[in-house]
């Protein structure tokens, strides 16, 4: 019998589970998977669900129906991050600030609600504008498309907030539940009706379910009072303006990834689906496959950020707070720089290996995705282009960590402009190619690297002066 006040020792099964799942063996793997879910979960699940639906129900829905369904989801997932990304980033920053100030609990719920409403509203506006511009005639599908875009935006915001709260376990569980509902509902609907908009609604239902679960987790049982929500608005909107360069930088980053696709969607060779969505599947399928190869970089960067990088930054801050002399502070900055470059090089190296593997496996990829010989060559260049994009992403993360937000915004803007320019140039000279994205990324890397090098070599200056926003009150 155990002594009072002491819990009984774990059973052998509990010990084994804890050792494997939470220990050194599977712990890092679990952590990596959690980050993958945050950065690419919606895409992965959507693509998987659409692939399964396409294969299973094409005889029933027809090729054009499957195409409209796929494009509705693609457009929604394309537009949603344009509002959700910036809003989620600002909300996450405000939550971190509130947590550091000891007011985390008070602000989390109200800021979450404000973020969800703003991102959803922005996504709705974007979806309506895009739908009207494309001339989508089917009103039922148009409405479903708008709501899907709203749900997608709110899903991305929830992912950002749960990641900021480090609630990865809940995130995985809720996301799985939501996606299971999406896929299950789609299967059920496809059997019952041939209406594409009902399928879209089914998919949307799962996303909203995840949003509802996440909101419940964050808000709790008691909704914040209206005064709290108003207070959150008074904090959020000025923060949106104050952090406008971060907002723009993230927006440019998303646009830079998509702009080459849009060049083809709105180029002379573009195809218009029955519903009115413009696309160019010949190029899209190549680049979507290529972009999947960057997911390990996103996930690894997230793990690195929450681990060695955060520790190095906290050491640096501790030196400042404990009033260390400059030699000691400089040593912590040097360590931080070493940690950052080591981490970036390691992630880049691993990504390089993944890219090489992807290139070597390109024949298999081409066969699985039914590429023709041109697409086979395109996807190999695409893998390299995406690898270069991964480097830009890593260097951009260094800029954000160093507080060089304006430079980050400029680099992402440069990438966007370069991708647009080179994609158009190559399209009208060479024809369909992935060279636009490749050359744009290649051209931006030296600029991004130079900026990141300066940011780290002058980290102390930028932290205390150059990028210390508290010194520029009123701007």
């Amino acid at each position: 019998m155990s002594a009072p006040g002491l819990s009984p020792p774990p059973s052998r099964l509990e010990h084994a589970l804890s050792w494997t799942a939470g220990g050194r063996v599977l712990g890092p793997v679990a952590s990596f998977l959690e980050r993958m879910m945050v950065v690419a979960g919606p895409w992965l699940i959507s693509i998987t669900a659409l692939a399964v639906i396409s294969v299973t129900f094409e005889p029933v829905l027809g090729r054009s129906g499957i195409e409209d369904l796929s494009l509705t989801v693609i457009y929604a997932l394309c537009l949603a991050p344009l509002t959700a990304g910036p809003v989620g980033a600002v909300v996450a920053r405000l939550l971190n600030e509130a947590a550091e100030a000891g007011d985390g609990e008070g602000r989390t719920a109200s800021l979450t609600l404000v973020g969800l409403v703003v991102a959803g509203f922005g996504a709705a506006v974007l979806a309506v504008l895009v739908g009207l511009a494309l001339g989508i005639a089917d009103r039922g599908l148009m409405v479903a498309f708008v709501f899907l875009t709203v749900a997608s935006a709110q899903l991305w915001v929830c992912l950002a907030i749960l990641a900021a709260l480090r609630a990865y376990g809940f995130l995985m569980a809720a996301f799985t539940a939501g996606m299971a509902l999406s896929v299950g509902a789609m299967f059920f609907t496809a059997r019952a009706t041939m209406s594409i908009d009902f399928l879209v609604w089914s998919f949307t239902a799962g996303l909203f379910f995840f949003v509802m679960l996440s909101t419940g987790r964050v808000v709790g049982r008691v909704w914040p009072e209206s005064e709290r929500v108003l207070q959150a608005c008074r904090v959020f909107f000025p923060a949106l303006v104050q952090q406008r360069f971060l907002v723009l930088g993230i927006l440019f980053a998303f646009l830079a990834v998509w702009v080459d696709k849009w060049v083809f969607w709105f180029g002379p060779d573009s195809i218009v689906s029955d519903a009115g969505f413009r696309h160019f599947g010949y190029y899209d399928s190549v680049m979507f496959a290529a972009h999947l190869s960057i997911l390990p970089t996103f996930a690894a960067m997230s793990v690195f950020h929450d681990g060695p990088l955060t520790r190095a930054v906290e050491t640096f801050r501790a030196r400042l707070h404990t009033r260390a002399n400059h030699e000691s502070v400089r040593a912590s900055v040097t360590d931080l720089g070493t940690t950052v470059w080591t981490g970036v090089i390691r992630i880049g190296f691993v990504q390089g290996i993944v890219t090489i593997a992807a290139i070597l496996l390109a024949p298999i990829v081409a066969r699985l995705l039914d590429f023709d010989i041109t697409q086979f060559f395109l996807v190999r260049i695409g893998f390299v282009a995406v690898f270069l994009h991964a480097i830009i992403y890593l260097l951009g993360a260094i800029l954000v960590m160093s507080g060089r937000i304006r430079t980050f915004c400029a680099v992402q803007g440069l990438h966007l402009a370069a991708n647009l320019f080179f994609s158009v140039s190559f399209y009208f000279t060479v024809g369909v190619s992935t060279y636009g994205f490749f050359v744009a990324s290649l051209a931006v890397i030296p600029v991004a690297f130079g900026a990141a090098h300066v940011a780290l070599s002058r980290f102390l200056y930028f932290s205390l002066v150059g990028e210390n926003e508290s010194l520029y009150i009123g701007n």
Partner: protein
Amino acid sequence: MQQPHSEIPDSEIDVCLVVEGAYPFVAGGVSSWLDWLIRNQPELSFAVVAIVADDGPRQQKMAFPDNVVHFSTVALSPRRAGRSRQFPRQAADWFGTRLEKVLAEGDRAAFADLVAFAETPQPRGALRKRRQPGRSDLLDSMASWDAMLRVYEQRAPQSSFMDFFWAWRFLLGGFFSVLTADLPKAACYHAISTGFAGLLAARAALAHDRPALITEHGIYTNERRIDLTMADWLSDTIDKGPRGIDARKDVRDFWIESFEAFARVSYATARRITTLYRGNQTFQRAIGAEDEKLVVIPNGIELGQFAGLEPVSTGRRPTVALIGRVVPIKDIDTMIVAAAEIRRNVPDVEVLIMGPTDEDPDYFATCQKRVQSLGLENTVRFTGRVNIFDYLPRIDVLTLTSISEAQPLVLLEGGAAGIPCVATDVGSCREIIEGAPDEAPKLGTAGFVVPPMSPQAMSEAVVELLMDDALRRACGAVLKRRVESRFSSGASSRRYADLYREAMAA
């Protein structure tokens, strides 16, 4: 905020007064003296540049005389600060070297170079567009940062880096505010202290090739040294042990040495450096002021208002008075303890503490408790703010127990009324009571000078005067003659008029 009475072109302004932390936003002391100075030079036009802490709204406490034609403020730490645009590396190295020389040595030539640098459009930013540097460009640039690191490594490498950083932000932020402020053009520039006011006058003198003057009531650098030595918001990183003998420098040392460097620059650039009494000149020389520039111009009082005062000697108790604010620096507590000793020898003595009691309520409460604990309720009386002319005829001895003073006007006012004084040996009290070394003919002693914080010495001196009518009358007469000959308002204003005439003609 009141605007000056008329705006005339800058080129026609005679004297630009530069004042820090006083006129027109603080009443009393230096502000009253400035008001007197301006009004007593009615034929001259004045600009007033007030150096303030920040650019927040302020209430003006003193109205401008008619001959103030320009007023502006310079904020040492403005709330709105533009973003920095970086200098090219060559300019950065040059800039950093001169900053080091100013801070380390108070080097006038380096300061002059920086003034010229701040006045000249410089290539800045990524496009190297030429424009005049702003405060933020100078303070927030990498050049300033690199200069800060060099100074830190030279001066206080063991100190807390963050403490040093914020000290740099304040000191150099104020320095750059001075370098980049808009300045009226005047025939001469008159700073009423060293510190940032002295720097601004020095900059104006160099930029406009006109003379700079400095007048110090208290010695700014000494006062900052005392403030900084006692400051509890400054923590020491370096433990110098019980004897304090350690060559290593802490941030506190950097603060003090920087103000000394500013003073050196101001003294080196000024044409004339005036103060109220000779004792102050010792401190000025110690910081590098050249002898030939030093001038003593004591404060003066309007003698006419004391002319009709007739002493009242009957129907009242022997009366001792201390005229001053009830604040720690006046050390009212010593006077209260001395009152107990005085009463032992003069049982019916009345000790008046005449001055406002609302500036430091906690200290006033402490004084009241002291009175009660010593059973002096019938002896010591706090009058609050009063018209001293109602009391002067009935005062036998005037006392001053201050820990620090410059040239206390109360002793001059008491002297004008023929009242002998007992004062602590601070500021110019010894010169007022015993006469300046160069007094000719020697008039004699007007009372007693005692050590600060010594109730015993204070009470013995007061009792001696109370018990000896002849001594008391003689001392009062000496002080009256001394005040009339050296400390009249007319004499003082004539000397300032001469000072300005010489400067404007240069």
